[in-house]
């Protein structure tokens, strides 16, 4: 299909151009199985997802908690590689997914695939950006240069522990700034840090791009509390938990729609916070 013209950076910027904070779901490519990935992406788009984060599974995901680790392990068992994840992204485009797609992966699979080869493949698959949680600012030179060359941002993360680094990272961020809402790895948390809003406002002061928040967000109350202080909310593990619960329904042709409805209901509930 024909996407609107413009680079990944412009398409990401446009996705934030809304009244409400952008809803940014994370899903693992090939989880629960590769044949569900496109259907799930379409369902998320239908429920108002502004940007899709597509996890490319890795054997040793240091920034991820058990939910995403397990999803990655299952996807790996289905043979989902970087190449296969890019094919799935391309399939999404063919099937009508028009929101920006951002890869979420780790530096080792990127290096192994070849950074420039990956950027070419991202361009071919109409993938708009990439997020690499184990590539801090100081190590990101080569990928950042490619991100600029291809107009497909390397999304920067900042954490509550980033201290004086927030200014340096936020000022140079492309696409959007990904604020890690809490210490720790990805995963559902019942409560957010008390100082989270101060942190988000500090990032907003320096960032020239939208500010999104993720890690640990699982319910509409949290979304509602964060909404006034950010431009986007990222939900991963809680969504994967829902997908896992729907796995049996998704895997049968006659109950597939029912499975997708379970996922859509959860997304609707989350967004009821704003």
């Amino acid at each position, binding site marked *: 299909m024909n996407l609107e013209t413009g680079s990944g950076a412009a398409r990401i910027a446009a996705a934030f151009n809304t009244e409400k904070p952008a809803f940014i779901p994370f899903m693992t490519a090939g989880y629960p199985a590769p044949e569900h990935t496109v259907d799930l992406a379409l369902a998320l788009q239908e429920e108002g997802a502004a940007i899709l984060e597509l996890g490319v599974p890795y054997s040793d995901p240091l920034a991820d908690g058990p939910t995403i680790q397990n999803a990655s392990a299952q996807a790996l068992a289905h043979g989902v*590689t970087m190449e296969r994840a890019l094919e799935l992204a391309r399939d999404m485009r063919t099937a009508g997914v028009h929101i920006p797609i951002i890869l979420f992966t780790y530096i080792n699979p990127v290096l192994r695939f070849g950074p420039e080869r990956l950027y070419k493949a991202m361009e071919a698959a109409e993938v708009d950006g990439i997020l690499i949680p184990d590539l801090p600012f100081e190590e990101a030179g080569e990928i950042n240069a490619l991100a600029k060359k291809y107009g497909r941002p390397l999304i920067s993360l900042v954490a509550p522990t980033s*201290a004086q680094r927030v200014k340096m990272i936020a000022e140079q961020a492309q696409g959007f700034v990904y604020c890690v809402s809490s210490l720790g790895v990805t995963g559902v948390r019942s409560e957010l840090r008390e100082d989270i809003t101060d942190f988000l406002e500090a990032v907003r002061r320096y960032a020239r791009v939208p500010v999104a928040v993720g890690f640990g967000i699982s319910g509409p109350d949290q979304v509602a509390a964060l909404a006034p202080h950010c431009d986007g909310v990222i939900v991963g593990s809680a969504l994967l938990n829902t997908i896992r619960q729907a796995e049996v329904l998704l895997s049968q042709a006659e109950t597939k729609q029912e499975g997708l409805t379970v996922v859509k209901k959860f997304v609707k509930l989350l967004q009821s916070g704003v």
Partner: protein
Amino acid sequence: MNTETAYKSKGRFGAHGGRYVPETIVNALDELEKAYQEAIGDPAFLEELQYLLREYSGRPTPLYYAERLTEKLGGARIYLKREDLNHTGAHKINNALAQGLLAKRMGKTEIIAETGAGQHGVASATVAARLGLSCKVYMGEEDMRRQQLNVFRMQLLGAEVVPVKSGTGTLKDATSEAIRAWVSSVDRTFYVIGSVVGPYPYPQMVRDFQRVIGDETREQIMRMEERLPDYVVACVGGGSNAMGMFYPFLDDVDVKLIGVEAAGQGVDTDKHAATIAKGSRGVLHGMMTYLLQDENGQIIEPYSVSAGLDYPGVGPEHAYLHDSGRAAYHAVTDDEALEALRLLCTTEGIIPALESAHAIAEVVKLAPTVSADTILVVCLSGRGDKDVTQIYEREGGAQ
């Protein structure tokens, strides 16, 4: 990654090293680097460390002339650097004591550690008890099974051993889990890494805390032989005993440095841990180094009879020493290591750790090929008590 790229990168050894970690812990690494540099310039810190190494751990460890082994093999005069005589039975205590003191200095109350064979876990648990810190040790379930006695030792010492179920339940998975745990509690915990691996400044710091092995060896061999050795041999998993042993000799180009990796069932099988021999460059546990990985960049599980060598990466400085040719890296199989273990038992009355038996196996191959005036020093990194049950099972019990 292209090292020519114009960006600031910390702690590189040639193309290797660096700091590939979640943003959440970057600040903690900066703080650690600062605290470490202050500490090693502080006479009070060094004095306390030296006191503990001497009076608590039993340093200096002997450099022992292995007369019967020398006679048996013919060729090089063989010296054993007896790190096995340290408190807790291995070189691991040198680093654990130093990092424990650093943790206290930084005001941390809890230490976390990962362990494969259990020696670093035992050392960390010991240090935590001695310094009044709480301690959690992450250990793969498979390693817990292989090293039950060490698990119990850690528990006796008051540490909590956290079983790691992910992956194949070995050192790689324990390390990943320890890093994840550190990310979650970085404001109050100190992560005691057990080898010259991980993000900067760990590889440099652990090397500096282990160089006492090489410094002592240098002084001892000069006293005993009035010259430097021709060969220095040490086993390499992550590579901390080897790095500590090699480092003070790096500028002595006539001293040949040999690291010994675990070839498991053979480097041409898929059951080995020979990272330098068979690996390729990549990023794991925060560092760029040689790794066992597949064509998609997924980490391959290593294999060795020795849980301590069963790691798919290697310290980045070793990767650099390999690239530069300053050190040579060889690999010996499980069978060769076990044969060497028996030989050391029966010639010298010393049961080496399975890790150290790999270094001995290299000596078995090398010593007979060189002249009788050749001096060879091998790091006996640990004692074999922890491995006796496993050897018993493997060898089919009492004969």
